[in-house]
């Protein structure tokens, strides 16, 4: 099987994008001082998080697979993460 990149894999999934509301919010200061920023980049299977040239963490919330791993390892206060509003987000067809 041809190896696919994570973004290529995500194109196979079905998402209902919530254009009005992100369900993820990073506190840049705490993320930087606690190392949470780098940790959530490494642990997210969907590559939702990325480090920008200025050192801030950007969030591609549309790609989120809603596992909650980032929240589980984030330092207190570094991350606000809840489920997307009802009906939005990833919609598995296989599961």
């Amino acid at each position: 099987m041809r190896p696919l990149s994570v973004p290529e894999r995500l194109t196979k999934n079905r998402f209902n994008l919530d254009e009005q509301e992100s369900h993820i919010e990073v506190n840049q200061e705490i993320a930087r001082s606690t190392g949470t920023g780098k940790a959530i980049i490494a642990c997210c299977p969907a590559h939702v998080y990325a480090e920008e040239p200025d050192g801030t963490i950007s969030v591609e919330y549309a790609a989120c697979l809603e596992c909650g791993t980032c929240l589980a390892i984030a330092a207190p206060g570094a991350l606000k993460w809840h489920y997307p509003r009802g009906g939005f987000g990833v919609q598995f067809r296989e599961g």
Partner: protein
Amino acid sequence: MTETAEPDFDVIVIGAGIAGCVATYQLVRKGRSVLLIERGEAPGSKNLSGGVLYSRGIQQVFPDFLTEAPIERRITRNCINFLNADSSVAIDYKDARLAEPVNAVTVLRAKLDGWLAAKCEEAGALIMPGVRVDRVLTEDGPDGKRVVGVRAGDDELRARVVVAADGVNSFIAQEVGLRKKDPPRHLAVGVKSVVSLPRKTIEERFNVTGDEGAAIAVIGDCTEGVGGGGFLYTNIDSLSVGVVVRLDDLTKKKKVVSDLFDHFLEHRFIAPYLEGGELLEYGCHLVAEGGLDMVGEIVMDGMVVVGDAAGLTLNTGLTVRGMDLAVGSAAAAADAISSALDQKDTSRAALGTYRKKLFASYVGKDMKTYAGAPSFLEVERMYSEYGELLANTLYGAFNLDTRPREHLLKVARKSLAQSPLKRRHLVKDGIAGARAL
């Protein structure tokens, strides 16, 4: 006295996974009015699992489960595979007795949970998909907080009992203080692809026929030494393939989880299984691996917690279980709720029979039996040295290089001498394993 305003339903269940659907089904069959709320567009659309369901429990709830439910294959072949970079040693266990009566099946949850929810609806439950419960409604009672319903957006719905079946992240149980944030060593992340392959190809590659299937568990190089493992499960015309890694170890070893998954898919002994396949879906899921330690308070005034939300998962090294425990806990909860409703007392004390029933059932008993498994599986040696020791011993036996042979025991001793493993490790891990598993 435990009840105030006339509620809209006897029971509101949050989350249409296996636990939520089984609880709903059992309660409506007992004549209760039940609202099942699901945040996904349709039941199943947020749900994902590795894929093996030990099915005896759910067959008791749905007698037509094996013939009517959208199951994939019945598992008759279980492999435990120690994987190294260039070698692999496996126990390959195939048994006709596992086919009849059926013991385990592979499932794809988006399909299965849709069926379960339809059974609930048929039996009389009201299902509300596409709605996220934001929090539970509570009132102050004589014994502290009491759950009286749920809030979803601007809507407030009231019930005599709320069932939190909202999955491993269990925001609801955390919100009311029943569950603390779990430490990363009790959690793992599973990453999975579903890869389509023709039915015939699957049967040839995995040496199965008809509706029989294989479950391959992999330990070792698949996770580059990070605590965890890989899996390959056969569906009807697709494979579920993934890795599960412990969060504390992933962070400590500074590995990128998607790299570990790529490494597994591209491994020389794994890639051939997937050759020619087409990716259908990519998903992930948080897994509770703390065993009994993670099961805390699961009952309060007006609410019970079931399934993953209650921390009910078990990794015994050989079997990885969650869905069967969800069934068992939901059945126990439904029994307890029904009796509590009969007595018109849904206090913590009355609903407490859920906990008693849970620990009297296979769920609680197995959680206790395997209470030592999580710390045993934290032993680092499991994820590299043992597989190499096995392969090096076998290499010594099979590599007939025209030098005179030595007895197998001597070969094994030499392999051990060259390994970072010491004899005391074997003794210690052997005893610990025998006790824990």
